[in-house]
């Protein structure tokens, strides 16, 4: 399909299909194309009102809706969980407006929308992961002004972000960022990978899958195309590290190689469970 | 070595209406290489003005100041580009007056050693040794070597000043009453130091308050007549 044809809704498709009107889809898709062309660069777009409050995933929903076709199999997860209220509602919404099939199996899905996690199972070239983003600006922590952060991105002026990390190491002996760990994409733009744990950051690097990031409230879309370098900011003598779950395992499926959620029992006991519930369920079957 | 031709200097003080205040007019004289020439004339005749024009502290209003630089060849100090004047001041032309231009918070020994390090490229150790030797000869007590000359007596300051001026052996040394308030003993040392400088090939042009001294140490004198 030609890009222009795709932009205008696809061949012979009913124009109002899939909740979003054609104009909105066109706008989002145009932003997506630009985002893919400039990996890690935040593309502004006209974020639409959704039947959901902003900040509840409206950026991700708009991307998903503008990509959706009836043949898609959709999975929606919220912090790894297929069963959270929000995930279930969004999934039902897609079933209703798009008539698409949904699943909890990462391998079966063609389109996965997620909040704050990347599935444990390796995704392939035929799949797209849509990430919901609350704060798209990786530099916001160090620079409050949007005009300045845009200039800093334009000039690849990232010394202050690095300085922020330097100060962490100096004062605390380590970089304290647990999530939203800043990454350099394609050797150029510093990007906020959304609030995924550090555990998930390496999955973005040279992946087979297309990653799309949507921030509805902030009106920004950005992307990491397949086979793109995504490098967490790190020092030569202070390397990026993922969370250490050494000696711990999932109490449900026994996995020792997944990101674990720690659950504190009423009696103070600590139990660990896979954060990716779909994967955990699959392992138990 | 130095050929001053038709040098005039006129000041324009804008606060006083800007009218011309002539200081010297149409001065011409030559100084040969290795010569020690004295400038003579009544007070206010403009001897200092001539010297400062040669040093470029004053801008000449008219005339030429041709100087045969060992490194640059003949140049006109009246119009030479500033950067090259700085180069000449660093490598060839020295100026010493009766007033010590102290650098705040630099001790006497380092004040004398500094131009030796800078201009001759000597290491600090050697420069300080040579500076100490000069100060010894000029009877500056050793306990004052590390003290700041700003606190010295007038005579001590002058002696430090002379040590600073001759230490680096300039090719042309301009002297503006450097012995004005020195005692007889110190003057003798200064005469000795200047003689040594000349023996090394330096050319000197100077003003001395004392006509006897002037007669004694210079080869000849040039009379600056002032303005008619």
């Amino acid at each position, binding site marked *: 399909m030609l890009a222009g044809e795709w932009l205008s809704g696809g061949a012979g498709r009913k124009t109002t299909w899939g909740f979003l009107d054609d104009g909105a889809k066109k706008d989002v898709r145009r932003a997506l194309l630009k985002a893919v062309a400039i990996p890690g660069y935040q593309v502004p777009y006209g974020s639409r009102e959704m039947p959901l409050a902003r900040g509840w995933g409206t950026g991700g929903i708009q991307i998903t809706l503008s990509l959706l076709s009836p043949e898609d199999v959709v999975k929606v997860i919220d912090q790894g969980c297929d069963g959270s209220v929000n995930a279930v509602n969004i999934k039902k919404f897609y079933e209703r407006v798009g008539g698409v099939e949904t699943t909890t199996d990462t391998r079966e899905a063609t389109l996965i929308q997620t909040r704050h996690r990347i599935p444990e199972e390796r995704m392939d070239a035929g799949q797209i992961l849509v990430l919901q983003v609350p704060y798209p600006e990786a530099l916001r922590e160090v620079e409050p002004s949007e005009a300045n952060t845009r200039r800093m991105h334009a000039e690849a002026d990232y010394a202050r972000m690095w300085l922020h990390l*330097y*100060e962490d190491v100096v*004062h605390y002996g380590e970089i304290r960022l647990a999530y939203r760990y800043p990454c350099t994409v394609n050797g150029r733009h510093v990007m906020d990978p959304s609030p995924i744990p550090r555990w998930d950051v390496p999955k973005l690097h040279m992946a087979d899958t297309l990653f799309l990031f949507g921030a509805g409230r902030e009106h920004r879309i950005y992307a990491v195309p397949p086979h793109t370098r995504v490098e967490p900011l790190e020092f030569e003598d202070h390397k990026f590290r993922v969370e250490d779950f050494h000696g711990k395992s999932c109490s449900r499926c026994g996995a020792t190689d997944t990101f674990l959620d720690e659950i504190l029992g009423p009696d103070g006991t600590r139990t660990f469970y896979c954060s990716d519930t779909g994967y955990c369920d699959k392992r138990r079957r | 070595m130095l050929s001053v031709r038709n040098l005039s200097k006129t000041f324009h003080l804008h606060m006083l209406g800007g009218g011309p205040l002539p200081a010297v007019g149409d001065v011409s004289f030559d100084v040969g290489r290795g010569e020690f020439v004295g400038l003579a004339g009544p007070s206010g005749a403009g001897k200092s003005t001539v010297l400062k024009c040669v040093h470029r502290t004053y801008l000449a209003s008219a005339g030429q100041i041709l100087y045969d630089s060992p490194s640059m060849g003949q140049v006109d100090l009246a119009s030479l580009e500033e950067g090259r004047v700085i180069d000449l001041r660093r490598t060839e032309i020295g100026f010493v007056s009766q007033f010590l231009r102290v650098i*705040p918070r630099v001790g006497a020994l380092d004040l004398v050693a500094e131009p030796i390090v800078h201009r001759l490229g000597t290491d600090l150790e050697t420069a300080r040794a040579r500076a100490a030797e000069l100060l010894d000869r000029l009877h500056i007590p050793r306990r004052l070597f590390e003290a700041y000359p700003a606190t010295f007596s007038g005579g001590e300051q002058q002696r430090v000043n002379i040590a600073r001026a001759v230490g680096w052996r300039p090719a042309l040394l301009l002297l503006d009453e450097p012995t004005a308030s020195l005692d007889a003993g110190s003057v003798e040392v200064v005469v000795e130091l200047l003689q040594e400088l000349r023996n090394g090939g330096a050319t000197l042009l100077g003003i001395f308050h004392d006509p006897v001294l002037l007669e004694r140490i210079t080869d000849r004198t040039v009379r600056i007549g002032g303005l008619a």
Partner: protein
Amino acid sequence: MEPLLRAHGITRRYGRGCDRCLESTGAEAGTNRCPHCGTVWACRDVSLELRAEEALGIVGESGSGKSTLVKLLHFDDEASSGFLELSRLPSLREVPELHAEGADWSRNVLVLDRYRQRRVRDASMGIVYQHPHLGLRMGVSAGGNVAERLLSAGWRSIGNMRARASKLLERTEIPLERMDEPPRKFSGGMQQRVQIAKALSGDPPILLLDEVTTGLDLSVQARVLDMIRSLREELRLSMLVVSHDLGVINLLCQRTMVMKNGQVVESGLTDQILQDPQHGYTQLLVASQLQ
């Protein structure tokens, strides 16, 4: 000594300008604001050259355009027109397409894109401002402040950066045990010294000093000046020294430029400017300040 930097026709104006600006502003007109169109000519047609290991002073009252000039040279502000060229400094070798094949002078760096301007700046200049908060991040540690320029220049080893920062802070007499404290806890003199350490972090050949001792106590001023003097010797720095204080200029600079209402009214050897000032304004300046 060979020239390092040359500037020609540097101009910064605020406003559109009009046909009568030229005659209505500047030193002779006694204002930098055009009475006809309201345009302010903060800096008009300034040219200068800075040579290796030379200190050039820029004097003038507030509003004369001297600080604006330094900000333009440091790319803190954008010039309306003019040329700024740099010689083939070894540290500039990394900046692509700066010098044409065989050329002694760079392209006009005032019209480079900001990314390359930053690289040129990091490789060639350090700056110390009058107000420490302009040059320092007050909430970031002193060591971090020094490291920032290194990070900007691509340093990525914390150990190396801390070693370099310790060396510079030690040299500027900041107690090393305070290296990880933010400058906002420091005295004014200490803040100035952290600024100097930061300015020197990238080992630049050119140091820009903008009224660095103004507002400091006399004894503190003396200490900062002594430090600058000895650093200049040690690191063979070229300096552009902006000050309204002729004493500071006399102490540091061989050459001096006098600015008024955005224009250079006179320039020359510092002792000549002080003892034989030509322009009425310089005469006034010397008469009122040099006692």
